[in-house]
């Protein structure tokens, strides 16, 4: 890890047994050995760190704001997104994306196969559905980028992104793709900082997840006469247990996956028979396995859809889930290799608060590890963070989020296109690849020169002095010197392509 300031090098040379004492000793030493300006420098470091962790990156003026209000106040502010007012410009940008205000059922009626006058089995009609699905998914990507750049509820946006990967829909095209945006809005956003069980249940019952992970195919067929023919598809059950809750190293056995698959039979997409708005989820008892099941050592009596709810409750409340989610959150926000003690503390909060994400995050951000020097400034940005932080740093209104979404493809992280059950990785070092690094540098050059039309001409933040002020201690002296040496817009490119700006 490169030391960015004399204070940090000093701290590294101290040898104290616990992080808490190290911080205290460092602070006292700083006060004694360095002038008052060093305390300011430390504030700037901490402010930058908290901006790097709780937002997609500093925007103009944010560093000064956080230094003034203090990191604790900023953390508290971000932990209550519902109290933060959004800028008007965000709503204006989103208004240009019509599918963003359509729910799952509306999208299906407007763009799904039934919108065609022909039969559903016509292959060209399905191809047209896929055309519209691609266009809708692009609008969803653009909306996500708009919010990531412009929203003041930055921590909330980071959590939405986290859960979208955790509950990844895979990269199959088709109806699940048509609903990529509505899934995020209906299943993820309402619960992103709420209770984990609510999030789990909302995703389990959403048509996008039912289609994407084949749970709608998971049925027991009854033809009247003859025995019922099970057509069990355990794909979704395996993913729920092995990736969304207990994790790959949990205590589950093969029988548990099979039992869960049988519990989930009959979970279908459709309009509810009584006409109530259920967002497209329909439980069909005719296709359900009504027997009792034993799941993770507990007996669940045959009771229709309530079995699934009970199973999800067992999973959400399981200690292995608390540990797995806590570990992943630490990996997402702090470091690739989460310290066991911190994982345990977060898991304890998870269990004690019935899986309240907000409380778990509070535990993380108030932990001594969070402000440990060992974890400052040494993570590598994901392509999404690289792109969004660049636009945020310049303080721009994005002109063309479609171009930015397209740039993400080259950078290696096309939105809503990750295969695999867990979407894009939370391990930051996994993104360090030669081609990716080269793309970032070209991206910086294209953004600064406006070959990539993301930032409007004449954006005040698009200048070397403005960027240096915005990014503060995030830029080393060598980087600032190199930017000053380059001329005009090239200086901005040098900053945005620097190794300092690839780290956070």
């Amino acid at each position, binding site marked *: 890890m490169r030391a960015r300031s004399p204070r940090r090098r000093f701290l590294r040379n101290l040898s104290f047994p616990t992080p808490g004492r190290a911080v205290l000793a460092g602070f006292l030493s700083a006060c004694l050995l360095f002038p008052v300006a060093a305390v300011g420098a430390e504030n700037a470091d901490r402010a930058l760190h908290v901006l790097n962790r709780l937002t997609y990156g500093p925007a103009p003026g944010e560093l000064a704001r956080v230094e003034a209000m203090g990191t604790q106040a900023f953390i508290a502010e971000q932990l209550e997104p519902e109290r933060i007012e959004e800028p008007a410009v965000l709503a204006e940008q989103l208004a240009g994306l019509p599918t963003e205000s359509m729910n799952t059922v509306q999208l299906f009626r407007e763009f799904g196969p039934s919108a065609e006058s022909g039969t559903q089995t016509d292959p060209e009609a399905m191809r047209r559905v896929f055309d519209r699905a691609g266009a809708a998914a692009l609008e969803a990507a653009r909306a996500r980028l708009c919010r990531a750049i412009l929203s003041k509820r930055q921590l909330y946006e980071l959590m939405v992104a986290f859960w979208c990967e955790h509950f990844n829909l895979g990269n199959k095209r088709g109806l699940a793709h048509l609903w990529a945006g509505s899934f995020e809005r209906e299943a993820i956003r309402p619960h992103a900082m709420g209770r984990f069980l609510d999030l789990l249940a909302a995703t389990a019952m959403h048509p996008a997840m039912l289609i994407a992970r084949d749970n709608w195919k998971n049925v027991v067929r009854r033809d009247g006469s003859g025995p019922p023919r099970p057509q069990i598809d355990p794909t979704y059950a395996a993913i729920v247990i092995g990736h969304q809750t207990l994790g790959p190293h949990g205590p589950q056995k093969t029988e548990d996956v099979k039992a869960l698959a049988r519990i989930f039979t009959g979970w279908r997409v459709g309009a509810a028979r009584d006409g109530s708005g259920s967002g497209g989820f329909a439980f069909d008892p005719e296709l359900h396995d009504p027997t009792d099941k034993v799941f993770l050592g507990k007996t669940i009596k045959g009771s229709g859809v309530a079995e699934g709810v009970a199973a999800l409750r067992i999973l959400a409340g399981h200690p292995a889930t608390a540990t797995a989610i806590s570990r992943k959150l630490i990996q997402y926000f702090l470091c690739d290799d989460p310290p066991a003690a911190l994982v345990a503390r977060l898991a304890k909060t998870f269990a004690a608060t019935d899986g309240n994400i907000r409380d778990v995050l509070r535990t993380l951000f108030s932990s001594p590890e969070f402000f440990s020097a060992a974890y400052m400034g040494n993570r590598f940005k994901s392509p999404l963070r690289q792109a969004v932080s660049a636009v945020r740093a310049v303080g721009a209104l994005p002109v063309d989020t479609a171009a930015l979404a397209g740039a993400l493809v080259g950078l290696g992280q096309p939105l809503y296109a990750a295969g695999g059950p867990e979407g894009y990785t939370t391990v930051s070092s996994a993104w360090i690849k030669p081609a990716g690094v*080269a793309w970032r540098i070209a991206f910086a050059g294209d953004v600064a020169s406006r070959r990539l039309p993301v930032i409007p001409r004449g954006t005040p933040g698009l200048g070397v002095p403005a960027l240096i002020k915005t990014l503060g201690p995030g830029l080393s002296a060598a980087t600032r010197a190199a930017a000053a040496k380059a001329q005009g817009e090239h200086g901005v490119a040098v900053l945005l392509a620097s190794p300092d700006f690839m780290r956070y």
Partner: protein
Amino acid sequence: MGALGLCAPGELWARKRSKSAAGSHARKSEPKRTAPPHGRPGKQLVVLLLQGGPDGLSLVAPTADPLYPYLRPTTALTAKEAGLDMGSGFLLHPALAPLFPLWKSKRLAVIPACGLPGAPTTHAGALAGFAAGTVRPGRSTGTGWLGRLSLALGGSSAQMVVGSLSPAFAGAPHYKLIAPGRGHHLPPLVDANAGLFSAEEHLFGKRDPLDKAFVVGQRSREQALRAYLAEARQAASGAVAAPAFADFGERFGRELAGRRDAALAFTAVGGFDTHVGQGAATGYLADRLRETAKGMVGVTSGLGRTLENTVVVALGEFGRRARENAFGGTDNGQGGVMLVWGGPVAGGRLLGHWPGLAEHRLADGRDVAVTTDWRQVVAEIAVRHLGLPEKRLDVIFPGFTPSSPLGVLA
């Protein structure tokens, strides 16, 4: 400079044929000498091969498609550019402004997603396929489709006027080569970010994984760049460079006006293999388009009143990939754009079927699909304008089955 070619008209090919080891092939084409020539006097077809494969998505930009800027972050045109609104959500590139009056006066038709189905995406392979008029080289007997067409129309006395040499008219009994003479050279492609990589070298250290990734990434990028530049240079070889064509077009057109006995004409124009720094409304491709459009209008004005009896077609050996590459350029693809203009053309229209840019609509998941075979267009022109009997099409384009007519001629 005059219009003398590098060799006596026609002789080179005639001599080569009698000396060639493939004498039997020469004899196979003999029967055409005894068949009476077809063709209508005074009617002409001019073929402009845009070598390198110009980017259809830039020439005829689908600005109404939301996927377009997503596929082309630095090379997409917007609907606000000073191009020509062609309807159906397409914009004709602003650099082609000299052609706008031809569209407005309904003499220019444009066919997007046009190409040779199954053509390889290497320049050598695609140029060979273009010249042979088929992707199965064995069937073309060593002649080019223009050569075969020339023989079918005019027999042993058939004349052609050409601005560059090409195997596409191999087998033509007589041709007159009009060299463009000393003109402007093709400028090289430029990587706009090369300087930035150099500037960053000093900021990356030596030891950590990020530094190592930078070094490897930079080296790969330099290698790829060198390969692209070499390919683009090679792709233009044998053709008239676009900057030279800008001025050459008028002279070529005047020659065509004076040689109404030549049913066929051909010139290759080079400079379209834009793998690096293609640009959008302005930039490298726009500059080449501006030069080529000037040359095309030059041909048109050189033809003067004989434009009434002339059809000009312009197309590349292929189009380009839907998604741009890491250098702000585009790679070799499939479906491209074909321009057709002249007196007899039913213009002011987009012809053919647009396949769309959704991933499942792209050929091999990455190229604009070919929905119109360029041979269909040429077949209609050869039959209805030049007077070729329809049953002879199989000789010109072996293995090609005409489909329902596009209606490119009025």
